[in-house]
């Protein structure tokens, strides 16, 4: 049943169901695992996503996009194919796509994390299947994440130390997902928190979707000035190198991203601190998910597909690497400030 899914130059395609998953070209029906820009591209006729993910996808694609949604776990029938969306634990509304046709089950994980400490999205749900299409962005054993609570302690300690030096703490995080996850976990008793406009826009979409996030002010000239040397500012990656950061006076800069696991990456970004807080599964999470799926065939995409596929092949699994348009080998989360 290999033809339930096929890798095309527009993205993953399900021929019997006649839909694409996260296509990078315009298609009639695009099933979207989550609203990050390398998975949700504009221009398709109709989009299908999860109920909780609709607002953020709308924010990304604009008012004109036709977006249908399904609650997690609900089944939709298309040409004899049963399609359902299940929590991936990556960001609000992120989904694994489960496709069933004549008793054969394929699951496309999209981006996912297995750590359930993130309170801003439904926790990852392990699924059994015949074919598993898994991301493996961090598919090397050097990537083993510390618990969120420990990383938040580190962030708080850095914030306090910045205050002692009279520096504003500029914490850079992907404006959709990571920023809200941190916002929800910050200890607001330490000091004032401000957010960049891009983060604010996405947080509004989270609130519209019913997510309860602390209401913190946007970082404008007045709020920045009033909180200099005390505030923690959540901003998109790249902000520390832009003129925008000047209004905060002396700053200490940091990035929250899985890539910060390596000192080299952190130094290259020229920030003071790096926190390896990731929204992707780590080495153990990937291996556990793949094993728990019971899949007889594994397709790998994104990141360390080469080493991960060799590792799994050597363990007797049937593995294939599939290309994506965006990363022959993307080493970075998008670093430019987002809309």
């Amino acid at each position, binding site marked *: 049943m290999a033809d339930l899914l096929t890798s095309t130059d527009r993205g993953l395609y399900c021929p019997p169901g006649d839909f694409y998953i996260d296509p990078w070209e315009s298609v009639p029906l695009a099933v979207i695992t989550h609203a990050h820009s390398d998975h949700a591209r504009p221009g398709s006729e109709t989009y299908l996503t999860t109920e909780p993910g609709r607002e953020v996808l709308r924010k990304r694609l604009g008012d004109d996009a036709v977006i249908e949604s399904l609650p997690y776990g609900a089944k939709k029938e298309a040409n004899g194919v049963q399609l359902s969306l299940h929590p991936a634990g990556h960001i609000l509304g992120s989904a694994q796509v489960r496709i069933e046709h004549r008793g054969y089950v394929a699951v496309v994980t999209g981006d996912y994390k297995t750590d359930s400490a993130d309170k801003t999205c439904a926790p990852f749900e392990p699924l059994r299947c015949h074919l598993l299409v898994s991301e493996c962005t961090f598919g*090397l054993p050097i990537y083993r994440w510390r618990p969120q609570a420990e990383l938040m302690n580190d962030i708080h300690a850095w914030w306090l130390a910045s205050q002692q030096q009279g520096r504003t703490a500029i914490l850079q995080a992907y404006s959709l997902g990571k920023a809200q996850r941190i916002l929800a976990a910050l200890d607001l008793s330490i000091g004032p928190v401000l957010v960049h406009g891009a983060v604010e826009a996405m947080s509004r979409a989270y609130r519209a979707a019913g997510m309860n996030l602390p209401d913190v002010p946007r970082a404008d000239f007045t709020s920045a000035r009033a909180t200099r040397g005390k505030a923690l500012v959540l901003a998109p990656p790249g902000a520390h190198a832009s003129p925008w950061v000047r209004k905060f006076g002396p700053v200490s800069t940091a990035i929250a991203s899985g890539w910060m696991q*390596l000192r080299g990456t952190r130094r290259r970004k020229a920030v003071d601190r790096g926190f390896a807080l990731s929204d992707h599964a780590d080495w153990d999470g990937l291996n556990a998910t793949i094993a728990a799926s019971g899949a007889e065939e594994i397709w790998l995409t994104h990141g360390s597909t080469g080493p991960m596929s060799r590792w799994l092949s050597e363990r007797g699994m049937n593995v294939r690497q599939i290309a994506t348009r965006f990363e022959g080998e993307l080493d970075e989360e998008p670093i430019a400030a987002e809309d």
Partner: protein
Amino acid sequence: MQRFTKLYFALDSTTRTVEKVAALVRYFSQAQPADAAWALFFLTGNRIKRLVPTGLLRDWIAQTAGLPLWLVEECCDAVGDLAEAVALLVPTHDQTSSEPLHELVEQRMLSLRSLAPAEQKQIVQKAWRELSPTQCLVWHKLITGEFRVGVARTLVVRALASFAEVPPATMAHRLMGDWQPTAESYLALLSGAANEDPGRPYPFFLAHPLEQPLESLGDITDWQAEWKWDGIRAQAIRRAGQLMIWSRGEEVVTDRFPELGCLLKSLPDGTVVDGEILAWRGDQPLPFSALQTRIGRKRLTTKVLQASPVAFMAYDLLEDGGADVRSRQLAERRKRLEELVLGARDCPELRLSPVVVAPSWAALEEAWHTSRERLVEGLMLKRRDAAYGVGRPRGVWWKWKISPHSIDAVLIYAQRGHGRRASLYTDYTFGVWSNGQLVPVAKAYSGLTDEEIHQVDAFVRRNTLEKHGPVRVVKPELVFELHFEGIQASSRHKSGIAVRFPRMARWRHDKQPDEADTLDSLKRLLAAVGQASSLP
């Protein structure tokens, strides 16, 4: 160990000089002398030679973490730093060791030296169970002889000077030469009590590259010009009836150059001369490649000694009659140096670096143009009224180097870099044309901006033709102008040619690969350089 690890990460996690110095001062004021001595030893660039081969370390971590070796190697490649990669692979636990640094070094680390691999493995695995991940990283750096941290020696000196409440120049001098990483010698450094080591050199005074027009230097008679010799900077120290020769890398090299032994008899006791060790025959230098045959060779055969004889080219006097004369004016030091060198009997290997006399800047420039055929790197300009200082201040000594050789070559292979450039493709191999094929002629890592590195990195990823381990063969499409200092015949290189200090001068977006240089043009250059070296 906790304190030292904390210091390591404090230094590693800031680019601000002030904060680095502050972290160092804090460390020196809190650490026990026995620990601070070792910290100082490592921070000032001393190494204990690799105690554990990196291959074994990879094997052991593969076994301990239950991973295949190839995957460990993938990890090392992705991290770009073996010590860090192995630390990230150590099975997790919650231990942190409070063992003092000097115990870790003297008991655990130094014991590795005399042990067989099986016993070494036990010590390393024990450390993996007891040290925290960050401590492991530092531990790996130490046992593989790769300890480096982003802090310049001058900053360490400044911090220690500040803690000891003495001027940095004083501390720089106290730190020169051989000192032992013990509590006693550390305390002596702070108090200035000891270090009567007769072999102790002075800190080398360094020159800035000349960037402005000559005329802006003012009157030419205020300046002394000398050839910029292409050898090994060294200090010859004649004290207490002994001769010691120190290289700028702060190594004693006396034994490597037996023919300089005559300096012992020719110089009076209490003399320190600054100069350059050169491969030299008759009245002219040999190419630097001749000197290279004398470096890093354990046993000096008669053949090597005959093929590449050396001389000591003296150009400054730092100590005279047992007194430090660095604060005197150059003109005065020079006069005395001339007396000493010209008065030295039976030591033709001791030479005086001649002053290049020119009536005007224009005339000096003409002389400068003859540098290449004289096998020198250009000219040095030194203020006649200046003291022999410390460090590299602007405006006192200028080095005026001749322009390098230049070729256009095509990027053919790429490898990932290390440290700050880990996981980026930053180490490149370049080829030139020979019979319709690109033959590798140079490797270069430096010269591009960060922005350009990112562009080339993206190109490499999208245009990989083959992968050989960490090396990627890329589509021959990008052309770069390479600069290099020297060229020599080499049997070790496929092209038959080796170039010295190659670096990327410019990315030639305007050139197609077929417009790059040919191996023939490099061979012509080699022939021309060879001729120059035989000129009178």
